[in-house]
């Protein structure tokens, strides 16, 4: 049992907090600095994290300590909490300003995309549907994808890079240059093919190919023996996916 949890157990919450902070202060700051680059923002997010962990008589820490078996490391849990609070803090900072400096510099379409994807957390497909149905009925999906990527680039160029990028619900889309025009319906066909895979196989493709996590991390998370197992399974799944897409078919277009 951790020292701070033992102090909490014997009814000494102040001592528990001091012990927890002494032991994990560096983890908390390192995690904050991973997401937040501006020094002033680090300070503000740290205050937010401390407030949250101390709130309601250390309710969050008590909930963790009360778990009969701790499977995850406490430090990993802390990093998860820090990420959550840092993103919330940034959403509040951006949400309360009418238009941030970043948004002011964006062209109209990208500003709409930034609002839908980064501030409101909508998926890329949702954002397209909303913008297409509202402000820009003539907007093509390809044009949207190009502007989406430019918006991600603009968000990544700022000082507050990491936290703003975390506000988006999905990863940065790949380059659209040279790609043919895809309709939303065809994107849906690919999603349906992915959805027919068992959950663990879907997760493997998503974590390894889309999120681009290292194979060893994917192996750990999905209880595979090693990175090689991730590679082998990925190739098998891609072959299966190709076969499935052939069966579903994409309509041929006549010239």
């Amino acid at each position: 049992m951790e020292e701070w949890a033992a102090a909490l157990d014997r009814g000494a919450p102040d001592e528990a907090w001091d012990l927890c902070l002494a032991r994990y202060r560096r983890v908390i700051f390192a995690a904050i600095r991973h997401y937040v680059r501006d020094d002033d923002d680090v300070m503000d997010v740290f205050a937010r994290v401390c407030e949250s962990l101390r709130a309601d008589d250390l309710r969050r820490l008590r909930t963790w300590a009360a778990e009969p078996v701790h499977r995850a490391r406490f430090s990993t849990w802390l990093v998860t909490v820090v990420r959550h609070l840092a993103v919330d803090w940034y959403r509040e900072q951006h949400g309360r300003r009418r238009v941030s400096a970043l948004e002011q510099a964006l062209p109209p379409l990208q500003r709409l995309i930034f609002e839908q994807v980064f501030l409101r957390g909508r998926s890329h497909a949702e954002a397209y549907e909303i913008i297409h149905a509202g402000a820009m009925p003539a907007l093509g999906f390809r044009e949207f994808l190009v502007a989406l990527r430019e918006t991600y680039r603009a968000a990544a160029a700022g000082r507050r890079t990491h936290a703003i990028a975390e506000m988006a619900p999905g990863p940065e889309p790949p380059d659209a240059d040279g790609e043919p025009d895809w309709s939303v319906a065809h994107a849906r066909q690919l999603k349906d093919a992915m959805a027919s895979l068992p959950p663990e196989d879907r997760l493997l493709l998503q974590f390894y190919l889309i999120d681009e996590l290292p194979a060893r991390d994917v192996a750990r998370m999905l209880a595979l023996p090693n990175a090689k197992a991730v590679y082998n399974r990925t190739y098998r799944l891609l072959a299966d996916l190709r076969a499935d897409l052939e069966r579903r078919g994409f309509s041929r277009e006549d010239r």
Partner: protein
Amino acid sequence: MSNFRPWYRLTNAMSTHSEGGLIALIRRHAAETDPTPDCLGETELAAVVDGALDPAVRPGILAHLAGCARCRRIVASVARAVAAPGVAATTRGSTPFRIRVAWIALPAAAAAALFLFLRPASGPRATLDHRGGGDDTAAIPLGPIGVVSDPRGLWWSSLPGADRYRVTVYNDSARVVFLREQPDTSLRLDDSVRIDAGRRYLWKVEARLGIDRWSASRVVEFSPAPQPR
């Protein structure tokens, strides 16, 4: 006439000599799925990252993850953070013996180190001009800031549209020593609030702009000046 050639593109991607095309298609179009209502809590998310799920709940959690872009994104983000050099260096375990020996000394030392880490830089960064100057969406703490002879009088700018203010003061252990909500833009800490000369304190003010909507100022530091002998 359309230049849309998904079949052509797909057959290219199906080349046995190149996985790149299909992978690119998956990345472009399969990255997002609709969120589900039963999203995972922080404990479960951390357990996924550490590969430490309880076998009894594992199938259900992985099934949720496979269908929830939000939770998946959090898992990927935390996995990257935990593996980042700056974070990984802090999570390499220390021995329980070292903790038992040092725990008495650590809180005081850590508190001092905490403030060295936390304090604003000297000079312009400690001034009002840097701290939220020109921001019309939050109240601005006006004093005390820095080393002050009177640490008990707190005052801040008013914020148009705000009907109440909530002031929080922290000591150098990040513990809240004072918390109050009020409609005025100044207050005085009474003697029941312990403010020690030479110690460092942080404070902030939040302005209420609507039902359950609060806008927080930057956190500023102050320290009571040592008393003359």
